[in-house]
């Protein structure tokens, strides 16, 4: 790993403030980390002696596991706090939690939090590099990076592609991070969903908004379906999941409107039968599990770049 990295950020808080070069640097590095998963001993010593704390103050299985595996494969010492085991349930403020963690001298803190801006608050109270693993409905940068990695692998490029993001855009940090990221990388981005789930001013982020899925799918290269976030009170925004599935669910008939080689993505977890029919989720166009596999490699790349890893990955 002797390349000169176009990456000088101290933290990874969001895609909004990364340049296309920085994004590409992470994607390239992620590509090289991918093959570690195929080794008999899935471990490199690059972050040996570094401490990574996973501070998950909102429920998460996939992302937390992915970060834990990424840290372990880089030989970092990693520990995880989850919402139920953390002192925040005892009334401690995030700043106090941050100060306590800081006193233990971690190198990287990965934070998942229900409220937008929490990782930014953390950076003001902690020396460690901070990775945003999802803050409210704001950003989820490593998801956008693994999505870009997946798209690039399957399409050979990102510039010039038409990407449709469909579903609960308003509550989605995945949508926001992907919009920032894909626009910087030169893709055309469409968002589609019930009007009541499209946030005001979304067009100002450089996307085209559709209130029906069919015209949005026309000629699309990539179809990214989002989960309806019932836990963020999305339920009141449309009549019920039955009607949602009928109007916005991705089924083979609708998928046929996209390009013949269009790929289907989903950040998970999938509500089968709601945003996507099982035949599409498990079908030949689905790259959903590849997204998950690349998630580990991308997170290794992010941790490596932020943790100042040694050049011993090879």
């Amino acid at each position: 790993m002797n390349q000169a990295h176009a990456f000088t950020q101290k933290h990874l808080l969001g895609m909004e403030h990364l340049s296309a070069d920085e994004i590409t640097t992470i994607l390239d590095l992620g590509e090289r980390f991918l093959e570690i998963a195929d080794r008999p001993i899935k471990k490199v010593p690059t972050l040996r002696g570094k401490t990574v704390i996973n501070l998950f103050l909102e429920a998460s299985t996939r992302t937390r596991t992915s970060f834990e595996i990424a840290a372990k494969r880089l030989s970092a010492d990693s520990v995880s706090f989850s919402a139920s085991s953390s002192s925040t349930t005892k009334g401690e403020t995030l700043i106090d939690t941050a100060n306590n963690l800081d006193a233990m001298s971690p190198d990287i803190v990965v934070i998942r939090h229900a409220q937008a801006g929490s990782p930014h608050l953390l950076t003001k109270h902690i020396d460690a590099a901070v990775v945003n693993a999802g803050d409210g409905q704001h950003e989820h940068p490593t998801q956008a990076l693994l999505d870009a990695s997946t798209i690039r692998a399957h399409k050979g490029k990102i510039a010039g592609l038409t990407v449709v993001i469909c579903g609960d855009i308003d509550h989605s940090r995945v949508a926001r991070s992907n919009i920032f990221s894909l626009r910087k990388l030169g893709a055309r981005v469409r968002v589609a969903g019930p009007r009541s789930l499209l946030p005001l001013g979304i067009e100002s982020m450089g996307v085209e908004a559709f209130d029906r899925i069919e015209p949005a799918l026309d000629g699309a290269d990539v179809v990214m379906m989002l989960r309806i976030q019932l836990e963020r009170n999305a339920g009141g925004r449309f009549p019920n999941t039955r009607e949602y599935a009928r109007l916005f669910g991705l089924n083979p008939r609708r998928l046929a409107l996209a390009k013949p080689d269009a790929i289907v993505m989903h950040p998970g977890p999938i509500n089968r039968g709601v945003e996507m029919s099982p035949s599409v989720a498990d079908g030949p166009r689905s790259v959903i599990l590849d997204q998950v596999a690349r998630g580990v490699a991308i997170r290794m790349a992010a941790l490596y770049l932020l943790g100042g890893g040694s050049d011993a990955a090879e």
Partner: protein
Amino acid sequence: MPDILLRGGRVIDPARNVDAGADVLLQNGKVAAVEARLAPPSGTKVIEVENLWVVPGLIDMHTHLREPGQEYKESIETGTAAAAAGGFTAVCAMPNTVPPNDTRAVTELIVRRAREVGVVRVYPIGCITQGQKGESLAEMGDLQEAGCVAVSDDGKCVMNSEVMRRALEYARGLGLPVIQHAEDTSLSANGPAHEGAATTRIGLRGQPAAAESAMVARDLELVALTGARYHVAHASCAETVRLVREVKRRGLPVTAEVTPHHLMLTDEACVGYDTNTRVHPPLRSQEDVAAMRAALADGTIDAVATDHAPHSPVEKDVEFEQAAPGMIGLETALALCLELVAAGILSPAVLVTRMSAAPAKILGLPGGTLAPGTAADVTVIDPRAAWTCDPSRLRSRSRNTPFAGRAMRGRGVMTIVAGSIVFAEEGRVG
């Protein structure tokens, strides 16, 4: 307390159409004379105020003094000291104290504490409903007798239309203005910021401007029904301006105020998640700010009010959505409004009207003019003084201002209440 002659200043007293160089003589706590040249009677303290503005004392009709109950944020003593330093000779104390000012006993406590430790005049505002719950009317008659000059459930909106109707009718009978924090809470849904492109980008839940204007629209229908005196607290959006402008044309007894922060900041200020930018109503769009400025200039918005809302780090050093809404404003309001004068949006006379004469008129308070015979409440302003907002130097007990570090131009350099100097910039008084 010696008599005072303010010599050589520019006297701006829009209530009497005065804007001219003149001397102002204050005797026995009252304005004795305002004339081009006055010889100081013997024993009079002469203060040179050349190049300074001499205006009727500024009145803030929307202040949270936090006493009783939240003295760790502010007290009547510290809040009125901040007011004096900001050029205010009077403040109206909003009733969302702990307990709320919904009974005579609380009003009397505030009046007594203000007499004991207050630096400027304090006019309490009582609750519309008991406990600000929006259910049963508070004892408005008792509150008024004890010293309340208006009623408001500020911080909370009276959501129930029947309760609001009866409150307006009852208050009308007493001659009390009703000040509404207009927010349809089912529509705002605790959104911590303004719903628009900025919140969409930064992922904060937003509340639409319509949460305010829809409630103003309902209330204006109730004003038409009841004929009560109605005042919109902290108006913040273009649609509210349009509604108020329209009913004023019809002659309804409606007035409105705007805060300095809704005149100076947009929702873009929230982008860095500075919790000091979290405020109710939220900082709005550029278009809304432009509408507020135009409305303040043309008189659709009658008054500037600070909505000075002190909070401690306990409430502010947290995630944006967890932070208590509100910012302090007493010590920055005048300088921020002077920016609008410098920009040619307000004339000096209009500024003084909005910050002194209009609040006095809306609430029927003494002051708002330098007419001989009135109380000697005077603010002396240096419109050119350059200073930087340093929260650590403010008199308020709290520090929650988004204007920290802002280069300011203009400030109050002397504040006189009933003929006594209650604040003076160092070196101003010989």
